[in-house]
């Protein structure tokens, strides 16, 4: 049962953390299909796997730096207000 908007924010930050923490060289490179944006034709639909990999890569690129102050804020909030 969701409790409110703050819970949604916390859940979102936690999920983004989970995506950004995936290590590139130890884990993601080992996945089959990870390097592949060159194997796809033009008119075809991209497979689900490539879409997910695109998604992960873009989230990591975009959210890596903004997540640091967001996490700090939430930690401070939890420390002060419990």
């Amino acid at each position, binding site marked *: *049962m*969701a*409790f*409110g*908007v703050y819970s*949604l924010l916390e859940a979102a930050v936690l999920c983004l953390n989970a995506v950004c923490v995936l290590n590139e060289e130890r884990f993601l490179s080992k996945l089959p299909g990870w390097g592949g944006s060159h194997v796809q034709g033009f008119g075809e*639909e*991209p497979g*689900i796997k490539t*879409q997910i990999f695109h998604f992960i890569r873009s989230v990591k690129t975009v959210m890596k730096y903004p997540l640091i102050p967001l996490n700090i804020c939430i930690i401070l909030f939890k420390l002060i207000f419990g």
Partner: protein
Amino acid sequence: MDYSMSGARKSRLGQQVRGRKPAGGESRGPGDGTTMYDPQYQQQYDIYGQPVPQQGGPQPQLFEDTSGQAYNNYGNQGYGGGVDYGYPNTRQGGQQGQQAYGAYPGNMPGPQIFQDPMVANMAMQYGQSLASQGREYMDKKIEKYVSTSQIKYYFAVDTHYVMKKLQLLLFPYTHTDWSVRYEQDTPVQPRHEVNAPDLYIPLMAVVTYILVAGLCLGLQKSCVTGDCPELLHRFSPDVLGMQASSALVWLVLEIFIILATLYVTAIQTHIKTLDLLAFSSYKYVGMIVSLLAGLVMDSLGYYGVLAYCSLSLVVFMFRTLRWQVQGSGGTMEAYSVGNKRRLYLLLFMSGLQPLMMWWLTHHLVA
């Protein structure tokens, strides 16, 4: 009626006009718009036939008689003149504003000046121009974040549409034509097209759901702590706020999941985010009906009506979204991969609805 300055003057020919009080002994003709001075009774009347309060003693004529022009300053001096009684012997010079003060000695232009049609007209125009300026400013500011013209499309509904749509939500089995008419790439407004999504019903449904949830909680008693001398109602005012925010949160989550699914499966649709918001919120109508049935007959009524509403909503969503997700025409397209994905997406979206309906209401029915 002619409200121009000259017209006002003309129409007041021969009438008593609020104007400067002439000094003692002088009488002015009616054509120049001063107050009528009745030398016999030492009394002056303004345009309403009310006696203008006299001020002590004769006062010197200091100004040109420009009562017609004094009407120019009505809007401005309505406030200034209200403060200052405008004794003419304290004002010198021929300035318009001061003439206006001097023109109404001892007579505060109180609220009855708005009965004067010219003043009312001017005040109305001034107020209207202010309001429209404010509205344009706000529109410009808001347009950057939320496109108001798009939202206006979703609220262009009428009673007939709302009745038809509610009927469709609860009984979609006999409706045959689910296609949406388009005009130049945008769907026709909801008031002309029953199958188009709108945001009015969802908005009303969400608010009603919150109120009905409060009602359900208020009719139940429960005991939260271990031992209570008497059972407490489960309702308190902050529960309403919690229900509202949790309903919103689940809505946002559901839309996000659907958007993510749309992205990952790379389905080409022209379904917009606001459309998704509308479709996701149609389930609140079914939820309200089930909750009310659950009030009447406890669990049996609730689950029975919930099952029926879920079925109706699934059929409604499936049939409506088949047209929206398919792209143009609604016919199955050539390559089969896209079809299968679309089908799965439709089934996923439609199947998510009963689950959400149950999840959001079962805690309200004991």
